[in-house]
């Protein structure tokens, strides 16, 4: 009996027929589908934030040598200065490099913590298009004729109260929000799904004890605990992630547990048991796909929830360390600088667009996984 006699090929493509139908359903929700792509593009762009808004050139040529300041940290003595890190924005370095080569700058010549030393009056300054050319160049040594007074050095959305560029801070803030949200969502999904799976599959005492524990755990006032822990531990991305993870995984347990409780007596699960398949394999291969529908539907909403939580912590000042780009901190600045509406408006639009996109994607996902949903 040869294998060749039964030549048959596995299904082409990486999607199962069910997966393909779900993708079709997802696409049929136009709003969600477009939101998904817009969000992906925005997120992709923000991942390249260093190439869009940075205080270092992307590539530079100096005395015949090709330099990549974005990736490599060059000491200033290379160009005749004395600082440990080159300030490419200073007039001296700029002139020196321009004289001996060239530089390719990102479209925005500010990073999230670069201070603009040439603001026309005290910070926060409005977006450049709200000022006349005279006014916006007034702080440069040569006024409107100064080579520094050009588009790349302009503050598209103004500066904040420490003269940092709002556009750059928004891009970096968006990135860290989404990354934080993604990391928190994935980590809580892993923990929550495993916990729910174990409870639902084994039931009985395991389930009972775990459920009581979760009830006690989730009745703790999360925000206060976050504030207390944040006051003791030094703030930082991973510390915050860890603290919030302590409480956010609980959200997944209910759905997954219910799904496992329902499906553990399905006939095909019994059939697998009769085949001698181990518990772990049954849970992973036969039951998890059932629970994944509920979990995936949940994900975008958890994602937007985590982003909101991070923003509110930042707003209260218990979030990311001082100086880091953050939308919550920008909202706080907007609140204390009511004369500078560009701060609050930028943060508001960044947040609301990001969250709306995620919610639309979430709705489309929910539609896609709904077996009874039909589109005409």
């Amino acid at each position, binding site marked *: 009996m040869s294998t060749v006699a039964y030549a048959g090929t596995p*299904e082409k493509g990486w999607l199962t027929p069910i997966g393909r139908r779900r993708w079709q359903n997802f696409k049929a929700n136009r709003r969600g589908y477009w939101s998904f792509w817009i969000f992906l593009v925005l997120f992709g762009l923000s991942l390249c934030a260093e190439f869009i808004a940075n205080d270092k050139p992307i590539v530079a040529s100096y005395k015949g040598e090709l330099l990549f300041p974005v990736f490599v940290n060059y000491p200033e003595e290379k160009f005749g200065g004395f600082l440990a890190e080159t300030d490419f924005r200073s007039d001296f370095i700029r002139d020196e490099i321009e004289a001996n080569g060239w530089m390719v700058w990102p479209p925005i010549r500010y990073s999230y913590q670069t201070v603009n030393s040439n603001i026309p009056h005290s910070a926060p300054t409005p977006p450049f298009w709200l000022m006349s050319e005279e006014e916006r160049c007034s702080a440069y040594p040569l006024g409107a004729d100064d080579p520094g007074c050009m588009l790349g050095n302009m503050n598209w959305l103004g500066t904040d109260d420490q003269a940092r560029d709002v556009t750059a801070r928004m891009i970096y803030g968006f990135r860290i929000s989404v990354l934080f949200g993604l990391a928190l969502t994935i980590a809580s999904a892993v923990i929550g799904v495993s916990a729910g799976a174990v409870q639902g599959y084994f039931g009985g005492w395991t389930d009972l004890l775990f459920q009581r524990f979760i009830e006690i755990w989730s009745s703790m006032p999360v925000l206060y605990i976050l504030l207390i822990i944040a006051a003791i531990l030094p703030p930082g991305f991973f510390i915050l992630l860890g603290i919030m993870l302590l409480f956010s995984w609980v959200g997944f347990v209910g759905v997954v547990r219910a799904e496992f409780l329902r499906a553990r007596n399905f006939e*095909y699960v019994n*059939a697998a048991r009769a*085949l*001698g*398949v181990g518990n772990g394999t049954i849970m992973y291969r036969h039951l998890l796909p059932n629970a994944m529908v509920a979990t995936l539907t949940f994900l975008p909403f958890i994602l937007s929830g985590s982003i909101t939580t991070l923003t509110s912590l930042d707003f209260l000042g218990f979030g990311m360390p001082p100086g880091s780009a953050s939308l919550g901190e920008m909202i706080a600045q907007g609140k204390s600088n009511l004369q500078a509406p560009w701060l609050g408006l930028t943060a508001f639009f960044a947040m609301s667009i990001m969250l709306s996109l995620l919610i639309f994607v979430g709705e489309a996902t929910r539609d896609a996984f709904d077996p009874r949903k039909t589109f005409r």
Partner: protein
Amino acid sequence: MTETLLSIRDLSVAFHQGGETSIAVDHISFDIRRGETVALVGESGSGKSVSANSILKLLPYPAASHPSGEVFFNGKDLMKASDQELRHVRGNDITMIFQEPMTSLNPLHTIEQQIDEILELHQGIKGPAARTRTLELLNQVGIREAEKRLGAYPHQLSGGQRQRVMIAMALANRPELLIADEPTTALDVTVQAQILELLKSLKDEHGMSMLFITHDLGIVRKIADRVCVMTKGKIVEAGPTAEIFANPQHAYTRHLLASEPKGEPPPCDASKPIVIEAKDVKVWFPIKAGFLRRVVDHVKAVDGIDLTLRAGQTLGVVGESGSGKTTLGLALTRLISSKGRIAFVGKDIDAYSFGEMRPLRNRMQVVFQDPYGSLSPRMSIADIIGEGLKIHEKALTDGERDARVAAALEEVGLDPSTRWRYPHEFSGGQRQRIAIARAMVLKPQFVMLDEPTSALDMSVQAQVVDLLRDLQRKHNLAYLFISHDLKVVRALANEVIVMRMGRVVEQGPAERIFEAPSEDYTKALMAAAFNLEAVNLSAIRQ
């Protein structure tokens, strides 16, 4: 008596989904005369239920539509009737009984409320008058102590009693036509026989006509005056029952008539090695009560059963639903815990843990009842069948495993090149073959078959029975065959255990039990299964 009550002319039904149109019923015509019973016979998917539902326009419009056809009831075309006119006909002149007595009654209302509602809706009877009429109806359909049952909720009644209540509701307004859509399929054989007799006598009493939809030819022969045989949306043959059974014209009718499970079970042979031996097997589920959840009593699902099963032999376990036959099978395969000695090829396995059982699992396999539920919808056929090999024969390479899967598919009569498809692309019979292939690929010695044919169409049933017998002969398999369908058991089993409430009623060689049952209960069961006669009711009720 020859006046035509219902006349269906050239009726078609089409379903539209996602831009595609499928024709479910294709230009059918038939008549029902006053006082006559017409049976619509066909396998699942032949369009018989859809035809019946379109008489009262109960289909999901606009997903369904009628490209052609007229339905004349008392000379009036129901297809053109307004919703209001239809509502007057529904539940009044024409009533329906559905297959599932579990779901066709509202679980939140008492029986009295549900019957009263119909009386009030169509006849305006209320209060004590309605109560009297309800009682009268319940007595008519043979519900004992009807007065006490008035306040009962559907879950407090048995399946047969629920179906009786459904019939009472259908009769409440003295309809001219009763449409019965597989009214006995979900019921036990003994209950089925009682319900059929009830329907027959009620029909004669009220002078109703009846449209009886079924896949069971035995029922047709028993109850119908005329038969319409349906397949693929068409009526291929129609005529008086006796004529069709005696002299079928169409090939499909002949195929249906020939599709009763046939063949001889393996002969008893006491010299074959014993595969499974069980002594005094008990499965008791505790009933807990009180504050401390103390065990106050037990539900004795299986209560002291002895059995011996030899290689190449089939032990049939028969009984009504709830008699503990599936529980017994699960206990023997150690899928639930039990008391009493169970020996598998000489080894006492009753104290084995789940982990200790695992190396033995490849030698004892299970095929479940529902081929739709027993295959994981998210795995391809190759993965489903290969799963057991991955566990028990880890040394196999991917290529070898694939060859084994393909060979197993070939053995059960499926094309091996379909093995990358998913279960939903197969019919019920094919799925059951896949489930059998999954068990057979491990080359077991003992297979527990839990009603493997009861979810299948008649002609498919016969094929699966033949397949099982061939496999048994080829591999010298020991079968524990659990079924409520005595015809199938007779075709497969050489020894039979008749179970009732967890206990053995009668046990012995199949021949003796089928030919000369000694217990009253067994006799009643046989009469109900083979002749659709309700006899020895006291033995059944007890």
